[in-house]
């Protein structure tokens, strides 16, 4: 039986971490042998999604019980839904609290609900406020770049003539699609910007092949994010995935527009 304890340092003498999502380590202790493994919490240094990463880590370690200072109701919900018992409000060193747990001296805190009770999909006032707050944050994060893109398109329309653009996008389907995919691969950010740019490109008479390739490669190919993807998932994976995705963006663009044309729109 495995017990995960959030901790400030990687040993049994460490103090129990005050927050599940942002504790520096998880000490995974074998209840019977007291063998332990210290695992770095990838969420500890992350601005967003620390709880998510901690939940994923703990689930992947196949632990049975989590001991921590504080754990959010959402994290408790997902942990218990995966069969993991959560005991929050725990204070002491890792070694001490594991011994206390073994002796049955740690009790579930009042008000802590199980996964089903916490309800992944249950909507109450708190959940609604949380969802509203998240949505407002998402829109706020989206708006500055979106505003920049729209203002830039305004400048573009004021300075770049259709003739100039048609000298780049010549009307050759193969070359235009390739150009669209290349542009999408270079740019990054919310796909909403690719829709707006693509929509304006259509106004300029650029083919739907090029616009479609731009929209697809905008998300699936990332030249800017390539170093990060290589570091996280390996050089071979990142290079192969981006190359395959680039080729597929061309194929998807050609298939989509051809299909659209065939059914007469």
């Amino acid at each position: 039986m495995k017990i995960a304890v959030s901790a400030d340092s990687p040993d049994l003498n460490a103090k129990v971490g005050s927050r599940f999502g942002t504790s520096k380590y998880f000490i995974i202790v074998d209840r019977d042998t007291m063998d332990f493994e210290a695992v770095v919490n990838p969420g500890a240094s992350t601005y967003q999604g620390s709880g998510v990463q901690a939940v994923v880590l703990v689930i992947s370690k196949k632990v049975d019980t989590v001991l921590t200072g504080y754990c959010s109701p959402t994290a408790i919900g997902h942990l218990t839904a995966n069969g993991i018992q959560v005991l929050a409000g725990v204070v002491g060193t890792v070694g001490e609290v594991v011994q206390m747990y073994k002796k049955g001296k740690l009790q579930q805190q009042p008000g802590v609900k199980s996964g089903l009770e916490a309800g992944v999909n249950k909507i109450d006032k708190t959940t609604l406020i949380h969802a509203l707050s998240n949505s407002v944050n998402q829109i706020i994060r989206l708006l500055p770049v979106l505003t920049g893109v729209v203002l830039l398109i305004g400048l573009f329309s004021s300075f770049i003539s259709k003739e100039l653009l048609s000298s780049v996008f010549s009307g050759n389907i193969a070359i235009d699609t390739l150009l669209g995919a290349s542009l999408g691969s270079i740019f990054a950010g919310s796909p909403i910007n690719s829709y707006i740019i693509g929509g304006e490109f259509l106004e300029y008479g650029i083919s739907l092949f090029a616009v479609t390739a731009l929209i697809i490669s905008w998300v699936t190919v990332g030249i800017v994010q390539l170093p990060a993807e290589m570091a996280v998932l390996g050089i071979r994976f990142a290079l192969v995935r981006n190359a395959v995705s680039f080729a597929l963006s061309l194929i998807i663009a050609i298939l989509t527009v051809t299909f659209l044309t065939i059914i007469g729109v």
Partner: protein
Amino acid sequence: MSNRSTRKQSVMRMIYFPASVIAVYGIIFAFMPDRAFLALKSSGIIFSNIIIPLSLVFILMIVLNLFLKPAYIASFLGKEAGIKGIILSMTAGIISTGPIYAWYPMLKELNEKGAGSSSIAVFLNSRAVKPFLLPIMIAYFGCLYVAILTVFTITGSLVAGYIVGALVEKKMPKTNIS
């Protein structure tokens, strides 16, 4: 790195681009005010075109945030092998939100725990389907185009997963963060 400095970096990254564009506008206003007004007018038209779809996007975001939590999405990945695992990865990719770099730490963890390269590639590529952005996409390109593109994009993500799996499997780095 502290949360405060990360937050500051994040905010700086968000405003850097629009601030640069506004600075360019300032320069153009000084030398070519007519062109600058024309550019602003064009931007205003684009804003007026997207304001209603953007409101719908906001409503869809609330709905998705109400029913889908990141940990719930994460629980889809790396749990199942085979076709079921691929379909779960695709679903996770479609319903995931936020910038891709926010998902990298989790993908790294899943990679280290043995999630297949196919599943991860399917997740990354199916992110091109954005349910909450559909109002904007439909406003610009129409329902039929969006429907066809969505079908081909989903199919494409599965094809990408298959090819990446065939070319990369067993060669993914397995590092231990313990």
